[in-house]
């Protein structure tokens, strides 16, 4: 068995020290008298600290304390005193150096009453530890965010869902077509609100994780009020409450979706906690913006609860018994308002009602976002909403023509033949224009137009389209006083003719227009 250096006296101390010189950490050995006996090569090369054999431990500590090379846990003088007092005791501490490296200093007493110090670079180890810690915290936060998200989703999605349930129920029994159509429209909006909500809730999940970046735009508050009205009016009506939105004027600048979350939570609470009376949503100009207020005639909030209502899962005594809500709504409001830097305020009178408000900065009206940026003729074209009966027996042509006219915003009622068209009129369709094919299977288009006009009881503007360009056919149509287009119909020509029939009848040219040569001049 080979002797281990230091355990046998047969080896030269010089060789032992030579071995220690290449150790992967710095070593200092102090005598019982606190003088430096040995500093290995690694120490000298790695740490730029002034050491010389025979120096005092006190001098070494003083240099370390005042060199400003590393971060000390206490004041330098105090640290100096601690180190001197701790000579020849067992200790291990980490120090962060100005270079960014982390040094571990471990000291231990020797049998002769002196002390050995070792200096190891633990930068990589520490960095890995920090990364692990961060990953753990992120994982925990994500987990917490997920649970929060589920709780919030449960809470917020109930509002539009409740509206939807009422609407579906009422819609099933509604006989009146117009009311039904209104309700279907409201259902459409309720589902789009749910969709937006899911998006917003995802954002709230991210909010907890600190990842939400508000998108500040200028917009009209009225657009938001309209959506809130649709979202809540059915629930309010069910409870016999008046819900009034005072039409606001003014452009505000904040994150539209997040403000909607704030206000819808205010209104939802107002509806939930008001039994008699109503809710008014309106706003007031303030020096620094617009204060949006939700005023209710509900039970009010007790003085001692007015701060706490914004806490997570807060529910007032009487609420707990009723199990109404999870107590998340106002907490979401607070977090969103903090994020958007919008002041929120609560004024309340127990038994008489509350006013929840949020103040938003004014925006630039010129930058106010319009409802639609992607415009088309279905939005504001000249034919928007114009009812037309299209009689065409060819399925493919009827389909493509319907698509074209719908693209121009028309309300198209397609019919394959005269009987179909008559049925449409009998069911209440009142067209402002009739477009008929000439060669229908059983009838001529000209006759169909006449029958339809008789059924309507008015000389509704009409036109004929024909694949038969025979002069004789054109003549027959002309003689019936109807304008005609030859297939394939050119969309611009169709457009011009429809425009003239609907808006400028004096320009309608029955028959084919004569070609006009332009007058011209050359330079």
């Amino acid at each position, binding site marked *: 068995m080979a002797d281990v250096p230091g355990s046998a006296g047969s080896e030269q101390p010089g060789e032992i020290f030579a071995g220690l010189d290449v150790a992967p950490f710095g070593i200092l050995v102090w005598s019982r008298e606190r003088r430096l006996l040995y500093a290995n090569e690694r120490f000298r090369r790695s740490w730029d600290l002034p050491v010389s054999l025979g120096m005092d431990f006190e001098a070494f500590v003083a240099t370390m304390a005042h060199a400003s090379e590393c971060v000390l846990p206490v004041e330098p003088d105090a640290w100096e005193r601690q180190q001197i007092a701790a000579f020849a005791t067992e200790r291990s501490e980490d120090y962060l150096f100005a270079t960014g490296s982390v040094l571990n200093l471990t000291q231990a007493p020797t049998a002769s009453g002196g002390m050995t110090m070792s200096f190891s670079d633990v930068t990589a180890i520490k960095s890995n530890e920090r990364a692990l810690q961060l990953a753990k915290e992120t994982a925990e936060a994500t987990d917490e965010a997920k649970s929060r998200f589920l709780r919030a989703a449960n809470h917020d999605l109930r509002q539009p869902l409740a509206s939807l349930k009422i609407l579906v129920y009422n819609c099933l029994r509604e006989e009146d077509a117009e009311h039904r159509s209104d309700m279907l429209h409201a259902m459409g909006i309720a589902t789009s609100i749910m969709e937006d909500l899911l998006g917003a809730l995802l954002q709230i999940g991210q909010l907890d994780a600190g990842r939400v970046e508000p998108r500040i735009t200028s917009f*009209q508050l*009225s*657009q938001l009020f309209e959506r809130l009205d649709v979202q809540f009016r059915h629930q309010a009506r069910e409870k016999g409450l008046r819900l009034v939105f005072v*039409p*606001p*004027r*003014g*452009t505000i600048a904040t994150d539209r979706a997040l403000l909607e979350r704030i206000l819808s939570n205010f209104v939802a609470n107002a509806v939930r906690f008001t039994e008699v009376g109503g809710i008014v949503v309106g706003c007031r100009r303030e020096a620094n913006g617009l204060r949006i207020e939700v005023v209710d005639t509900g039970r009010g909030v007790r003085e001692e609860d007015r701060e706490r209502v914004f806490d997570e899962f807060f529910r007032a005594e009487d609420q707990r018994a009723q199990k109404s809500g999870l107590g998340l709504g106002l907490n979401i409001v607070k977090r969103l308002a903090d994020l958007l830097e919008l002041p929120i305020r609560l004024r309340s009178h127990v038994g008489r009602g509350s006013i929840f408000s949020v103040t938003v900065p004014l925006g630039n*009206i*010129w*930058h*106010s976002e*319009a*409802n639609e*940026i992607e*415009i*088309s*003729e279905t*939005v*504001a*074209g*000249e034919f*928007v909403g114009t009812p037309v009966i299209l009689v065409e027996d060819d399925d493919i042509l009827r389909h493509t023509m319907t698509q074209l006219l719908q*693209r*121009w915003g028309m309300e198209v009622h397609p019919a394959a033949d005269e009987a179909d068209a008559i049925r449409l009129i009998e069911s209440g369709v009142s067209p402002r224009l009739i477009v008929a094919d000439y060669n229908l299977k059983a009838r001529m288009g000209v006759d169909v137009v006449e029958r339809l006009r008789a059924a309507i009881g008015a000389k509704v503007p009409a036109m004929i389209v024909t694949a038969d360009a025979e002069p004789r056919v054109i003549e027959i149509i002309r003689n019936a006083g109807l304008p005609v287009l030859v297939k394939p119909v*050119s*969309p*611009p*020509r169709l*457009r*011009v003719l429809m*425009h003239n029939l609907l*808006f*400028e009848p*004096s320009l309608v040219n029955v028959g084919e*227009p*004569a*070609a*006009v*040569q*332009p*007058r*011209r*001049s*050359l*330079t």
Partner: protein
Amino acid sequence: MTAHNQPVPIGSMVPLTGPSAADGAEFRKGMILAVEELNARGGLFGRPIQPIFADTCRQTAEEVVSAARWLIEKHNVHAIINGYNIGPQNSEYEPIADAGIIYVHSNTLLQHHDTVMSDPARYFGCFMADPADYWYGPGFIKFISWLRDSGQWTPHSNRIAIISGSKPYSIVIANSMAKAAADFGWEVAFGPRIVQTPTHHWRDVIEEVRSTNPAVIANTHFYAVDLAHFQRQFRANPMDCIVYLQYGAMHRTFNDIAQEASDGVIVSSVIGLLRDEMGKRFEARYNARFGEGSTATIGCQSYSNMHHYAVAAAMAGGSGPPGDFEQNRKVAFALKGMIYRSVHGTIRYHPDWQAVVPYPVVTHDPSLGMPHIFYQIQDFRKSLSMIAPEPYNTERFVYPPWMSSRVSAARPVASSNPRGLVGL
């Protein structure tokens, strides 16, 4: 003459006769000035540009389509560049798309979007160098809301009345105005009512409007003479409201007929000469070339369209005659990709619409859109006052003489004019 210095024929469809002949004359002048400037600098790769004008008379579909055919078939034009033609409703796109040449116009029509987007490959060369008529609607609603919210005007109510002419342009503007109103706190108390135009008789509709007591009357018909009659009949027994008249009231003819009755009227244009240094220099050149009676604010449309086209053709390595789809696609690509600051603001084509994007209603960045300019006639003997939007405005709104001033008209407006522009 060798092929490399043969002229490049460029067509221009302008109403040289008929009701829009005054505008047509200016469009022609704008083309001539642009071509002269381009040719003086060497034309297109050394080839002079030759403009060929086709008269579109009353601007009906038949007349404009025939003009396009004549230019393509007889003159082999590489492009058709002009101002506007009201009436063809895009029928002229068909012969142009068949020939595969470039077409740049200022027709201000929403249906351009529909036609181009219905078949982008076919209509690759059709460009509308100004924003669609649609944008007048929301733009106007924002304008009156801005007057209201900035305290320059206190309306007695939120009611507005909308009267429309019977052309698609007027109807689309009236519809889009009505659609935007509620979002900004306005109630459409009357209309949009479509009146058969042309007409000089407005008394009946004015009386109907009176019963709704509106704070704003907007008439989206655009013939200068008809509008002048409207304004005279309105002023005979005015209401306490702002009067907005579409485009035509910018014309000299309007003031000539309406005289003092013009003062106070609001009018706007989605395309108009700016009063900055660029605009003033252009106007000086234009007047020097064609005389003081010329109207640079109309001629600038074809002028800018021609210059923009020439730069695009140069970027593409040259222009293409009818049938050279490949070369003209390159020109179209260059037109689409290039943001061009003209004397009337920025021409930036929307990638799908192939139409110019308006400022501030769509883009909030004045360097990326063509300004929708609001003017007020403050003295019918003088130039129009440009009152919005920033940063192009040079004057401020004043209460029309027929209105009661609930708010002191002298109240300073909280607005800055960073360029320090002054009115012409």
